[in-house]
């Protein structure tokens, strides 16, 4: 354990930048985006540095104001937190690099606090990641939710309704989490993640602990949109502007998944949840249900963004399965899928934004012949789609591979069959788009469509390349970061 400023800087930088960006929005609106891009760039570099250092030296700890753990608030950056922090920083950076008007549907004008909101969201997500106690995790959870509600509402009146419904469900979720934390606090007398573990170990089998676990899992499951608590997600993600949808699907729900991993497999005593409670088995089967329901609903959609939103439900199901199986192999699969799905879903939402900008359509039926008119965008779309289906050598194949191995390793053959079969469902909903993009010609009466400009193509291209790189070099990431993390959590 090393004392370091790094964990604190991960939240201080975006929150400070959010204030600067808010001031810029009323004085020099053009500067706001620069501030945001710079801050997220700095955060990404700091997160990478923190990850490397925590792998070398063990967890980096920052006691706030110099007060150490039982009395003060601690921020902790271990390799698991570092891994998620790098993802949040990198996706946040790309979302801000993506042209503002295409991504968010409005210009950075005077009085538009868009960039401040994005920075607030990213800072709070990082706050969840580095939180060293259960209550700070709750506060960060609420801050990122508030920023999300506001960002979703940028998508117009229908988005405001979706955002309001998300707010109602999301707030109930976080209140349930808080109630569970209350149970933990009143039985153990502490909130620090380090000190809760030994205190709970003495209370194994107590109904209070079981109730606390149930409340916390339901609360975080709502935030993570695990079936059947996913009902808010399709509307919220499909009505949100493309860049916001990318941010929410790629990192926002993943941070809730991180919180679930952290609490179930790290904070709760080792083997307690695994052996004593059926929570993990339930998580697995609800994950399986989410995979099926999400995939089948995605097939029925006629609107690209809506289809992507339903497919997010299915992909989160995979992550829930990985957590629920609770073997090192399956957890590696879940964590790998967190980053892989982030890259491909952000890429797909960026492509959706580019198509809305260039061809003024969201309807899948209007995608006919776009392959010849927007070749680069559509090549990126194809790479990401192939990865969603899970064909080698793209990233999606490898995370599913680890998940299937994990399921087979615990003799859950039905889970393995569902994971493989859902690839076929994913193939169905992407194949019809790919077929119409590449093999159909465009109706003559449509207005002409041109390739997106380089500023739009750049983040799309980076993510498409990332999907391939993450696939080909996944062994490096698994060996260096994920396997040690999974082995430590599930010895």
């Amino acid at each position: 354990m090393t004392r370091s400023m790094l964990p604190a800087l991960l939240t201080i930088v975006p929150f400070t930048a959010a204030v600067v960006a808010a001031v810029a929005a009323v004085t020099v609106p053009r500067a706001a985006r620069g501030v945001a891009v710079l801050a997220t760039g700095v955060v990404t570099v700091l997160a990478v540095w923190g990850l490397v250092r925590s792998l070398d030296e063990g967890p980096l700890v920052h006691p706030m104001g110099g007060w150490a753990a039982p009395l003060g608030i601690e921020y902790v950056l271990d390799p698991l937190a570092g891994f998620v922090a790098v993802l949040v920083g990198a996706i946040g950076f790309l979302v801000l690099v993506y042209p503002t008007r295409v991504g968010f549907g409005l210009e950075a004008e005077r009085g538009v606090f868009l960039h401040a909101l994005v920075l607030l969201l990213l800072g709070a997500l990082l706050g969840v990641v580095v939180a060293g106690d259960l209550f700070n995790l709750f506060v960060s959870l609420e801050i990122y939710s508030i920023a999300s509600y506001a960002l979703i509402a940028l998508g117009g009146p229908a988005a405001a309704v979706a955002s309001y419904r998300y707010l109602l469900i999301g707030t109930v979720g976080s209140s349930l989490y808080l109630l569970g934390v209350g149970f933990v606090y009143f039985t153990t007398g502490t909130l620090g993640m380090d000190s809760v573990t030994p205190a709970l170990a003495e209370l194994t089998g107590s109904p209070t602990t079981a109730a606390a676990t149930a409340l916390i899992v339901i609360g975080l499951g709502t935030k993570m949109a695990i079936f059947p608590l996913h009902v808010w997600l399709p509307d919220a993600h499909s009505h949100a502007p493309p860049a916001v949808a990318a941010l929410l699907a790629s990192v926002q729900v993943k941070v809730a998944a991180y919180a679930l991993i952290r609490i179930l497999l790290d904070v709760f005593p080792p083997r307690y949840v695994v052996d004593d409670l059926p929570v993990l088995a339930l998580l697995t089967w609800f994950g399986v249900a989410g995979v099926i329901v999400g995939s089948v609903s995605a097939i029925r959609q006629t609107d690209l963004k809506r289809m992507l939103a339903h497919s997010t439900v299915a992909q989160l199901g995979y992550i829930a399965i990985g957590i629920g199986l609770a073997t090192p192999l399956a957890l590696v699969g879940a964590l790998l899928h967190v980053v892989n799905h982030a890259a491909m879903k952000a890429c797909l939402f960026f492509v959706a934004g580019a198509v809305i900008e260039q061809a003024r359509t969201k309807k899948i039926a209007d995608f006919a012949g776009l392959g010849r008119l927007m070749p680069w965008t559509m090549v990126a779309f194809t790479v990401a789609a192939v990865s969603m289906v899970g064909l080698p050598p793209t990233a999606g194949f490898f995370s599913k591979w680890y998940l299937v191995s994990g399921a087979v390793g615990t003799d859950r053959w039905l889970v393995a069959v569902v994971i493989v079969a859902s690839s076929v469902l994913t193939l169905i909903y992407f194949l019809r788009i790919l077929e119409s993009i590449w093999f159909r010609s465009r109706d003559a009466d449509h207005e002409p469509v041109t390739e997106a400009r380089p500023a739009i193509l750049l983040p799309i291209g980076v993510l498409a390349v990332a999907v391939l790189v993450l696939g080909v070099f996944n062994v490096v990431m698994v060996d260096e970061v994920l396997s040690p993390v999974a082995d430590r959590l599930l010895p």
Partner: protein
Amino acid sequence: MLELLADRYVYLFVVALLSLGLFTLLTERHLVKKLVGLVLFQTAVFIFFIEGSVREDGDVPVIDPAVGPDPDAYVNPLPHLLILTALVVGVAVIGVALSLIVTIKHAYGTLDDAELSASEADR
């Protein structure tokens, strides 16, 4: 049973308030009434924390020479602090919710959940 009522009546009250809040949230069609349900639900959680901080004959949590330095002689101040923070967060959520309600009312002219679903299906 009577003992439970006498000792733990606050917890029963909390459970009642939680259920009432959730019931209102799920069954009311009007968006503002749903928000009222949500606030009830949150408030129940806050009361749960405050009740947990109570100590029999506990003093105000500021060290008093007459009471001495024994922490058990004072009520536990930590839950109060947690709930102060949670209240601030809760106020922000209500603020966002109310501003969304204004936006929805301007755009659709109604705050009825069923009518909103119907007008979305039309588009």
